[in-house]
């Protein structure tokens, strides 16, 4: 596991806690800060550290296991596994995410960003840059 790999949780965010945890973890997985074979903390430990119920963490782990990033073993926690990328694009899921992106793009336009700025920001984000 490379350097400081962290997960953060914003209590004021409208995004549910399990989704925030899953989003952070996915970012680390996509950017290869978490590599196959890496062990993640037990759900109870991460739950205590973040001050949330362990089921919240378990839900985030399960979500990423369904996406093929993690292997969950009873009592042995979660392990990062090699994902057969690129997987076949799930059209339904991709359409859903693109719709969300369209809403966000509209919001960005309404706060004053030009379409050129939005597209260049998107390109940077797709290449792994931090916002």
């Amino acid at each position, binding site marked *: *596991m490379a350097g*400081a*790999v*962290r*997960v*953060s*949780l*914003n*209590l*004021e965010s409208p995004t549910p806690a399990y989704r925030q945890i899953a989003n952070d*973890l996915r970012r*680390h997985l996509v950017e290869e800060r*978490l590599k196959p074979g890496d*062990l*993640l*903390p*037990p759900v*109870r*430990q*991460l*739950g*205590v*550290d*973040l*001050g*949330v*119920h*362990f089921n919240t963490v378990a839900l985030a782990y399960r979500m990423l296991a369904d996406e093929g990033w993690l292997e969950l073993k009873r009592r042995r*926690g979660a392990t990062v596994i090699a994902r057969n990328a690129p997987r076949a694009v799930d059209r339904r899921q991709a359409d859903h995410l693109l719709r969300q992106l369209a809403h966000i793009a509209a919001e960005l336009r309404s706060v004053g960003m030009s379409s050129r700025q939005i597209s260049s920001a998107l390109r940077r984000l797709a290449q792994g840059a931090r916002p």
Partner: protein
Amino acid sequence: MTSASWSVMLVVTVNAILFHAMPRFSRPDILFAVTVPEAFAAGAGRALVARYRAIVWSGAAAALAISLLLPAPRPGSGRGGLLIMGVVAGNMMVALAAWLFAHRKARAHAVPPSDVRVASLVPRDTSLPGGALFAGGPFAILLATALLVYTYRRDVPDGAGSNDSLGFLALGGVYVAMMLTMAVSLARRTRQIAVDGPAAAAEQRFRRVNVLVLVLTGYAAAILLSATTVGSIPAFGDTVSGSVGFVLLPLMLFNFGVTFWMFRVGQGGQRAVAPAARQEVHGDATPDHAWKVGGLVYFNPHDSAMWVENRVGFGYTLNMGNPRAWLLIIGMILGPMIASRLLF
């Protein structure tokens, strides 16, 4: 000066020293159980600490003066003893009131709690120091003693029958099990506040020393109980009474050493960490409003942590808003009660 005055002087002085040192035990940015900016704690907050300490020592001096004015207690009369207890209790109340007063003043400088929580994704070591085999040592000592008592059961003098001895050893086993339960839950159910770097390492070291103290408390109990039991067997009496000190002395020295070390490094080991290394860490990741009675009791049903760092004194305290904490407390009370009912 009467012997009662000497006793009052000793108790009052120890009490005053303890309350005097109390603000030094906390993390650098926690003052009188309130999360404040570290700059305030190290700057303007010192005036608050000085005023608090002045009240504590004035209370101690007043208690001592009153004890000197008290007449020597007459044998058979309980009134003198009651007066002395009243003086000591009064001194305690003054120190406590000084703490609560300072706590209220510090709240005006409280830092609002952060909405963002951060945790490391690197699993940390939650095992017991020395491993399970070392932790099981006290049980082995008690079992070996039980076997010895059973072998020499005919030599045990009347009145200290082997059945009673075995019962006490079993009760010792319950106590050791309680210490180990606490050690395991402390190792696993405590929040890591600093995410990484020297601050996190210091915190982890501090936690493991606390866990080790609990494991060694089990050893001390097992050794003491075994020594007393084996000492009642005539064949071993002389050998045991002479050698038990050699075993207990290192444990006592370790306890003194730990107390001194904790005083030096402060809560969570954070006073030993350079300020730059703990810039990211603020407070102890618990909200001020969940601390009741001047920071003595932590009650937060929305916090999944079972143990949190103490805000008054060293070490850890239970989150009274967590049902598991109550289960542990009830187990600690009922365990020995049920065991003694079954054994005697």
